[in-house]
């Protein structure tokens, strides 16, 4: 057992040789991306945020080559992004992972024949979905098209999404995207009952779903006076739609099952109004 015996696996010993030839003074040089230091920068940058990484590309050329690399952006994209994108209605064209990230964060792709749209929350890279009106079950009311209804007190809109599609360990907020037509600022109140519940098995073994349905009273009207307080009012969005929060839920690790979302008319409100439903949006809760 005398003497020294080099016994690294072949690829590793080559790696060693390569590493030995490099010097630590290489930060910021042209061959930056070939240095083992760049592997370290990848490890560090991928633990910051997309916004940080974009900003840090202004540090030096070497930093930019790592900050723009697929190695970093692949970690910001959801691990199942390839699988999800394969369901896209239209081909998704991109040449770098960073490009794909912003394609999904600034826009969206339509999946499953257009019933579902997929995008990313720009700041966190978490997955967002919208169930299109065609994917929702809409009952009662008087239909124009499937998505537009003259809301009677008994309308009932519901939709479902598979929990495993959503980002794990994330609190999601669910919104109804809708419009009320030309009189949208004239309504007061317009209460409705909303529920968001998980139906299935939790990955952490803490139980099977939410049990009793928790109902939130939400409003489909925009709050008209800033002095009014309480209640969940609708908001006008930057696009043409209005949105109102239906509820939130925490998607744990490894949950299997469905999140069921439902919105019902409120007994006691006998007004009828035109409700144009665009869909139900599920997006991560932003900590403020």
């Amino acid at each position, binding site marked *: 057992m005398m003497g*020294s*015996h080099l*016994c690294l696996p072949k690829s590793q010993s080559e790696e060693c040789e390569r590493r030995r030839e490099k010097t630590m003074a290489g930060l910021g040089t042209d061959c930056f991306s070939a240095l083992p230091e760049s592997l370290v920068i990848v490890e560090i940058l991928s633990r910051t945020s997309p916004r940080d990484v974009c900003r840090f590309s202004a540090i030096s050329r070497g930093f930019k080559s790592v900050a723009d690399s697929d190695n970093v952006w692949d970690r910001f994209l959801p691990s199942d992004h390839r699988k999800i994108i394969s369901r896209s209605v239209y081909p998704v064209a991109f040449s770098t992972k960073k490009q794909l990230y912003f394609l999904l964060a600034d826009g969206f792709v339509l999946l499953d024949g257009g019933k579902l749209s997929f995008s990313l929350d720009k700041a966190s890279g978490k997955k967002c979905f919208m169930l299109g009106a065609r994917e929702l079950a809409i009952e009662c009311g008087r239909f124009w098209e499937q998505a537009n209804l003259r809301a009677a007190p008994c309308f009932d809109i519901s939709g479902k999404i598979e929990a495993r599609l959503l980002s794990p360990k994330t609190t999601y907020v669910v919104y109804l995207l809708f419009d009320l037509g030309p009189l949208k600022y004239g309504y007061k109140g317009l209460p409705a009952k909303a529920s968001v519940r998980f139906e299935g098995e939790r990955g952490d073994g803490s139980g099977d779903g939410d049990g009793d349905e928790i109902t939130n009273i939400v409003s489909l009207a925009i709050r008209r006076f800033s002095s009014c307080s309480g209640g969940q009012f609708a908001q006008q969005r930057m696009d043409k739609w209005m949105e109102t929060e239906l509820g939130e839920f925490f998607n744990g690790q490894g949950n299997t099952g469905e999140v069921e979302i439902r919105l019902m008319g409120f007994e006691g409100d006998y007004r009828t109004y035109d409700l144009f439903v665009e869909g139900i949006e599920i997006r991560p809760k932003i900590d403020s």
Partner: protein
Amino acid sequence: MASSIENNNEKLTLKSSDGEEFLVEKHVALQSTLLQNMLDSDCSSADVIPLPKIDARTLALVLGYCKKHADASSSKQGELNSFDSEFLKDMDMGALFNLVLAANFMEIKGLLDIAAQKIADTIKDKPHQEVREIFHVENDYTPEEEAAVREENRWAFEGFP
């Protein structure tokens, strides 16, 4: 730890880039996937394993981490977590950087995670000029080039100098 009982007394020698040798118990070395793969192949006759690029100071730290994690039972996760945060406390950027490099090379996932995360937490939400200082990186952009990079990533500079 039952699986390693029969090999408990086996030791191997690691040699740092600056020539210092470290005698390590096998179950401690197994925290490193690189060393584990070497031991799994027919490499068990190796008596000195050279680790170029990892200096003695860094290797001592790495092995301290490995020993703690190898000796603790899985039920002591809380204790390990506080060991981990204490372990990295007051460590300067150079030492952390060397640790990430070593953990990456030796394939020690847990150490790579905590050391890289510690650096990431230090630079998060900081202006890029400040991060340039922290990493001692020379700005090799012309002013025009830097302006172009900023324009390309305008979203990321909102609220930053």
